[in-house]
């Protein structure tokens, strides 16, 4: 199973999202085609209610620690409750442009 689909399965099970996007954005970056290095997650769940952003992200990181130790180099997280998602007109911010640093790190 690809890292993205295993993330999708885990988050669906644990956080019962009303909306979930797990997008492999690696093609935007300085890596070989087919890699799962840069992943963007947009998730809407009532389980985020009364949790600040740090706690929400920690909750997600905890579910996917195996994937984070594997091929994934960068992850972009956008977490909302149902009402926050509606307020934002169901859109999340774009990920920042790559600066190509991954290549420098590997060499």
């Amino acid at each position, binding site marked *: 199973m690809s890292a993205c689909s295993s993330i999708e399965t885990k988050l669906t099970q644990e956080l019962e999202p009303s909306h979930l996007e797990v997008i492999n954005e690696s093609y935007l970056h300085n890596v070989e085609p087919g890699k799962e290095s840069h992943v963007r997650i947009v998730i809407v769940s009532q389980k985020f209610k009364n949790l600040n952003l740090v706690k929400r992200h920690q909750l997600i990181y905890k579910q996917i620690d195996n994937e984070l130790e594997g091929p994934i180099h960068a992850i972009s997280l956008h977490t909302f409750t149902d009402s926050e998602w509606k307020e934002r007109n169901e859109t999340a911010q774009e*990920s920042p442009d790559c600066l190509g640093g991954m290549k420098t790190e590997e060499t």
Partner: protein
Amino acid sequence: MTILDELDEQVKANPILLYMKGSPEAPQCGFSSKASQILIACGKPFSFVDILSNPQIRANLPEYSDWPTFPQLFVNGELVGGSDILSELHESGELQKIIDEVDIKD
């Protein structure tokens, strides 16, 4: 002193501290670049640590902060978040408030 104690000391000694890849002048990653630009826009002096040239910090900070990725912003010893959180807090104006409240001694 263990590395975790050293990190604790560093985080508490610097009221606004960004752990990032590269420097604000020459960031080595899009997320670190975004985070440092947002902090610069908030208008207060801040400290930063380049984790690419400090591998020990890079290896141990995630355990200290319970946060696996970089950048990481600490304000008054507390983790505020990574670049996605900073841009959301910046957009809502909350980050400016957090930064404005920081008392920086000369």
